């Protein structure tokens, strides 16, 4: 019973934080709330027995992401979202509500949360759970699956991260170009 209460409360906090992020206009507050959002989701992962995932989310989502967003905010010198006059949010709101309703309709057939006999639990997972300690001698099944059974997959992920690093270096690593405002003043010499 107690885990259901924790589950319900944490998820409610997550939803409230997300709605607060949408309604706010101060970017600094939004970024800080996003850090809180990440920590809450990490707590949620712990409740759902995903220790490795919680660990990663706490380090990455609440740590690195927040730092990068703050750096972007400092670079763009933009602290407030401007709400243009006469802008009506009805169309996006309608799209979101219709999509959400369709998705909720889709959940009616999903097996209940925590169901031991759900199809997701009965195909590859039992093999990993039974054999990973025999095959690899590594008690942490997540590491065994990540590095051994699905090593090829992880190789791809590492290459994706490497590529993203190169792309950021290409976009921001070079010399700083003059902004549009500065260009209007002098001659536009692009480097």
């Amino acid at each position, binding site marked *: 019973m107690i885990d259901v209460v924790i589950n319900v409360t944490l998820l409610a906090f997550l939803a409230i934080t997300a709605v607060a992020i949408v309604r706010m206009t101060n970017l600094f507050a939004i970024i800080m709330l996003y850090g809180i959002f990440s920590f809450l989701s990490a707590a949620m992962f712990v409740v759902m027995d995903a*220790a*490795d995932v*919680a*660990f*990663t989310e706490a*380090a*990455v989502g609440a*740590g*690195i992401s927040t*730092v*990068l967003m703050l*750096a*972007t905010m*400092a*670079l763009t010198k933009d602290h407030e979202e401007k709400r243009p006059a006469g802008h009506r949010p009805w169309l996006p709101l309608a799209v979101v509500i219709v999509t959400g309703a369709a998705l909720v309709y889709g959940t009616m057939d999903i097996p209940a949360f925590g169901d031991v006999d759900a199809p997701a639990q009965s195909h590859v997972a039992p093999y990993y759970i039974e054999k990973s300690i025999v*095959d*690899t*001698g*590594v*008690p*942490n099944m*997540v*590491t*065994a699956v*990540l*590095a*051994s059974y699905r*090593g*090829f997959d*992880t*190789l791809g992920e*590492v*290459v994706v*991260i*490497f590529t*993203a*690093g190169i792309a*950021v*270096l290409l*976009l*921001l*690593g070079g010399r*700083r170009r003059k902004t549009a405002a500065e260009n209007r003043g002098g001659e536009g010499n692009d480097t």
Partner: protein
Amino acid sequence: MTHNLVLRVVSKTLIPLIIMFALYVQFHGDFGPGGGFQAGVIMSAAIILYTLVFGLDAAERVMPPMALRILASLGVLLYGGVGVATLVMGGNYLNYTVLASTQIAGQHLGILLVELGVGITVFAVMLIIFFAFAGRGRR
């Protein structure tokens, strides 16, 4: 922030602990929660803390950008190299069993090396990204 005494002292004691924790997470990932991805991020967090307190120039002396680029490629190469090594030793690509005499020992060695490659790449790429953002603000 370079003149804030409390921050300087506290971060000086914290950074070695963070690095040690990262190494623990890296090499204890087989038995408890952890692994290369987490360790790389935690390790880069230590250097990011150093950058925030002591400034970008000091951090770039500790971690030269060129070394980071080499490290990032080295991690991917280590991962792919383990695969090539297994191919040469007569197994399938990334089938670590052939790396040592017994299956368990081979798998252990393979997982250790591969996680090390992941950790190095994640560490270097996170710092490359952070330095790119931080360096952009400097005219």
